[in-house]
């Protein structure tokens, strides 16, 4: 067995949109051929702007939506074509934490019921009894176990996210996709939840794909960071390298756009302001998908698709990488 718990090979997810203007079929290229490996115990941060395909990527990897093509290899098993009943056994090993802690919990179920759902679905009775197991989980994520019989509306946003986390770790999964788990929370609460996720991940040796648009949060929690743009992987690098020396112009622009809580450096800092918006994923630009907003774009960028190549310790998809 290799040390990679998850291998993604050329994963593609296209959504059909019905007919286009001239009658031909159109597809939204949400994820358009991404490849990477996730090592055991590693956290990869998946970042990009809204519409770049990061959430679709996360859900396709978990097979919550069927991939169009490509391969998903989880613990050396190719699960790409597994049926939903065959997936159920594997689901105990792979879990998801959702962005919105309000809509992710059934308002009519008690917290005890919500957190015990994984046991029920998998037909597992914990040795210590389901109720004790659930209460242990609640204590584990910093909830009061006595609140077992309460309903979601009695909890704050941060507490609800803890409930979602308790549910996700109930079956001791090996791999979790956390989809924007803290972006709905206030800063002071956000820090509590990030700390909790870090602790759990280290103690339980969980591998994690952490999807977020907030680059400061991602830097804090990830070992490596993957940057997506219009369904394509732009750059994958060790966190320290990516933040110190971004190679892809898009990564550089993204980092320079994040305002830091430091007014003096904000006043002197040179900011790269990208012009325009994200192009449509139905008709992405030819060549490098970033060429329409890139200040370094040349003719080659408009015709040749750059491959994700090794540059130093990083992988970069750019004809003219920076900082080398």
């Amino acid at each position, binding site marked *: 067995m290799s040390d990679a718990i998850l291998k993604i090979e050329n994963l593609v997810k296209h959504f059909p949109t019905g007919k286009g203007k001239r009658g031909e079929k159109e597809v939204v290229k949400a994820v358009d051929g991404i490849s990477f490996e996730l090592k055991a115990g590693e956290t990869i941060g998946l970042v990009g*702007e*809204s519409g770049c395909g990061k959430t679709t990527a996360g859900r396709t990897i978990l097979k919550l939506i069927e991939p169009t093509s490509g391969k998903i290899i989880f613990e050396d098993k190719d699960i790409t074509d597994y049926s939903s009943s065959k997936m159920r056994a594997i689901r105990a090993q792979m879990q998801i934490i959702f962005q919105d802690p309000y809509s992710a919990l059934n308002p009519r179920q008690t917290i005890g019921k919500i957190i015990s759902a994984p046991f029920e679905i998998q037909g597992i009775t914990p040795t210590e009894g389901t109720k004790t197991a659930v209460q242990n989980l609640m204590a584990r994520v910093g909830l009061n176990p006595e609140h077992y019989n309460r309903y979601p509306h009695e909890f*704050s*946003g*941060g507490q609800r996210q803890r409930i979602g986390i308790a549910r996700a770790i109930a079956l001791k999964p090996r791999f979790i996709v956390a989809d924007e788990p803290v972006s709905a929370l*206030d*800063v*002071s*609460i*956000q*820090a*509590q939840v*990030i*700390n909790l996720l*870090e602790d759990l991940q280290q103690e339980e040796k969980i591998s994690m794909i952490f999807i977020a*648009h*907030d*680059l*400061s*949060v991602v*830097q*804090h929690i990830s070992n490596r960071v993957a940057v997506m743009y219009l369904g394509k992987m732009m750059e994958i690098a060790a966190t320290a390298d990516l*933040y110190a020396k971004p190679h892809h112009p898009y990564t550089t*622009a*993204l*980092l*320079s*756009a*994040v*305002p*830091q*809580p*430091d*007014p*003096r450096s*904000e006043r002197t800092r040179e*900011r790269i*302001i*990208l*012009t325009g*918006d*994200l192009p449509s994923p139905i008709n992405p630009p030819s060549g490098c998908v970033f060429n329409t907003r890139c200040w370094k774009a040349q003719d080659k960028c408009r015709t040749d698709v750059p491959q994700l190549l090794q540059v130093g310790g990083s992988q970069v998809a750019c004809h003219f990488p920076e900082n080398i």
Partner: protein
Amino acid sequence: MTELLRINDLKVSFKTDDGLVHAVDGVSLTVNAGETVAVVGESGSGKTVTSLSVMGLHKKGQAQLSGSISVNDHGTFKDVISLNDEEIRDIRGRAVAMIFQDPMSSLHPFYKIGNQLAEAYLVHNRGKKKEAMVRALEMLELVGIPEPKKRAEEFPHQFSGGMRQRVMIAMALMNSPQMLIADEPTTALDVTVQAQILTLLEKLKKEFNMGILLITHDLGVVAQVADRVNVMYAGRIIEEAPVDDIFYAPLAPYTLGLLKSVPRVTANNDRLKAIPGQPPSLINLPVGCPFAPRCEYKEHSAESGCNTTRPELLGTSATHRARCHIPESLRQELFAKEVKELLA
């Protein structure tokens, strides 16, 4: 310096089934021409309620307001709280305008962008349709929308999130207000687009000498554009200061707590220092300092009045004041060390 907005001891409460919610509890602040004043706080701290009060947007009968909100209407000050509906409509958009967080729900999906902009002008200039359209195109151009003539004929769904927010700003500028309230103007936007919008707001401030009241929860945004900052907690301003003082010499434990809990791109990967606990319920505020249950510096307070008396907004400097029972000199000493660590 021309004063554009002066809020004095504003109190806003709402009746609910569970009791009276004191959403804003004695807020005072001013905004001058040519400056951006930020109001920072977490959800429920009262920042949006404050901004809605300035626009006179609370439903009559639901909200109970007291205090005064003086808006500079081309030289004469008018108190929004004592004005009637018609008088408020007269200053709204003309003396003070507002942009909201969600640009999609603030635009009508069935009307063309150009007509929606023109409407904002026609409210104050009845019958001048041609003039209104000309002005709409000018404003679209000003906020950086390419091909304004073509875009004015389009509908909101044909615009991206960033473009819609530009349209909202254009709409706010239709009647050349001096004062702009921006309530979380970039929260729904991606960072690259956020950078564009913040640059645009800076430009408006400089070119038209506008005063901007910026409501946000994002300390990074505050650091980038604000001149002065008010930090809110549980309906009150707990610290007010020029922007550098807030970030480099905070005097309220809550402000320091916020600064410590923000993950920073430049920082080392130490554990985040979260503020323990949660904000208090606005129905049953603690008797003493509302932040006391979460405060880790409480023990430094000599009289330990933290649990019994509400601290006043005080400070030895005229521009920098905070609510805290701990002696100011001791706070300066304690907090300076922590800020130094943060910036290291």
